[in-house]
């Protein structure tokens, strides 16, 4: 029996708002990973539910998931959806299962409507051979890479189960992808505040990704991130801002980039700038846009996004499964509905904060405190304010007519 926080689980009326259909389906291809990264929220965090799940998704579950996605597309007349082939390590057993899953979804959706399906596989790169990349490219599946920088030292935390570094294989994958820009979706980099931010940024852009996102390590008020002290939840000031400082250093290097060959998008910065210019965000890390993503586990369980596992055991569960339930059922789940409420999901401190509409309270899981749940400012509150104010200052000076 899981103990969920009272809000949203007991007190949110999920029929009191108009749900936003899912447009992004995170499909677990493999339930295990060949790496054992020291900071992994999935395998090193408080939730051990992965141990009870199948190692791989069966053909039956792939087929059923595909039917459910097609059903959702038909019901809501969607003209485009994204599927993210995920894990564990989705390429653990080669590209076959990834290709089969993507084809199952495309075939089911093709029969349902003229809906565009964009497919991406997110990999640690260690199994991305030339042959695998060819097959993924032939199937129109783009590849995202998880790296913590462009040098061995940046990736020292990314090791296999025997403690051997993954870097050389991952670097080879990055070099392959750099030669295949049509297949390259980008790099996701989890921030290590002990690393030099400019060295991380410059080493990553040398790998020529079309886009990079810098991810704050998943942390909560109960499990603060490296470099931040344990405190009670709240909007504490003054406060140290190691992550805000790290990101502002990268932002300045990106904003002031003089090399015209380097045009790498950085999602977090682009979305903060968009919000400051009055547009809604496309990222769950900032802003108040509804999250329209859902996860299907290797056994067909319909879940909320994996990051919630950093909060407590069972935090991502919905109790639903594609073999018995539609995705519309998941839209009425309190945890899913809470992610679509915008300002109504924020803590009082955030509602009164001048930065609140831009940071949006930050990533949902970073607001969690044991016992009191998710209606708190982010554990990165001061860091986010530091970054947002810095970008606002630079953007204002750049955008003003001279």
């Amino acid at each position, binding site marked *: 029996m899981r103990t969920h926080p009272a809000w949203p689980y007991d007190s949110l009326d999920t029929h009191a708002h108009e749900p936003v259909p899912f447009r992004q389906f995170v499909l677990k291809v493999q339930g295990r990973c060949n790496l054992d990264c020291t900071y992994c929220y999935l395998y090193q965090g408080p939730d051990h539910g992965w141990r009870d799940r199948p190692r791989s998704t069966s053909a039956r579950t792939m087929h059923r998931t595909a039917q459910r996605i097609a059903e959702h597309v038909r019901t809501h007349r969607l003209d485009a959806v994204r599927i993210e082939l995920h894990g564990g390590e989705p390429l653990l057993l080669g590209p076959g299962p990834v290709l089969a899953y993507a084809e199952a979804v495309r075939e089911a959706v093709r029969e349902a409507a003229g809906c565009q399906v964009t497919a991406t596989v997110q990999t640690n790169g260690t199994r991305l051979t030339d042959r695998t990349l060819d097959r993924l490219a032939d199937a129109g599946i783009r590849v995202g890479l998880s790296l913590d920088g462009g040098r061995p030292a940046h990736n020292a935390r990314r090791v296999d189960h025997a403690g051997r570094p993954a870097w050389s294989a991952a670097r080879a994958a990055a070099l392959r992808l750099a030669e295949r820009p049509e297949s390259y979706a980008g790099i996701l980099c989890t921030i290590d505040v002990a690393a030099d931010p400019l060295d991380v940024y410059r080493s990553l852009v040398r790998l020529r990704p079309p886009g990079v996102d810098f991810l704050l390590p998943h942390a909560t008020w109960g499990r603060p991130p490296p470099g931040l002290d344990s405190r009670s939840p709240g909007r504490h000031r003054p406060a140290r801002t190691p992550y805000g400082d790290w990101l502002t250093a990268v932002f300045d290097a990106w904003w002031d980039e003089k090399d015209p060959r380097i045009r790498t998008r950085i999602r977090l910065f682009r979305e903060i700038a968009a919000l*400051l210019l009055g547009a809604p965000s496309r990222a769950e890390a900032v802003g108040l846009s509804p*999250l329209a993503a859902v996860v299907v586990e290797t056994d067909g369980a319909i879940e909320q996004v994996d990051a919630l596992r950093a909060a407590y055991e069972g935090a991502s569960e919905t109790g639903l499964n594609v073999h018995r339930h539609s995705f519309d059922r998941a839209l009425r789940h309190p945890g899913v509905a809470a992610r679509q409420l915008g300002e109504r999901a924020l803590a009082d401190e955030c509602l009164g904060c001048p930065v609140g509409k831009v940071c949006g309270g930050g990533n949902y899981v970073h607001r969690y405190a044991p016992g009191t749940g998710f209606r708190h400012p982010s554990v990165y509150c001061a860091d986010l304010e530091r970054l947002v104010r810095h970008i606002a200052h630079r953007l204002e000076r750049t955008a003003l007519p001279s």
Partner: protein
Amino acid sequence: MTLPADDTRTPLPEIAPPDHTDHPVLAAILADLRARAGEVVVAQYEDAP
């Protein structure tokens, strides 16, 4: 750095998107925002590129 207490109630500046800019990063952002016009904007899952 320590975020000072006395700045934290200062409103953010209101910044209108400029019609034109020579700044390459801002120009790319403005082009992206124009491309988004009219679409349903939702938040994407962070752990996907």
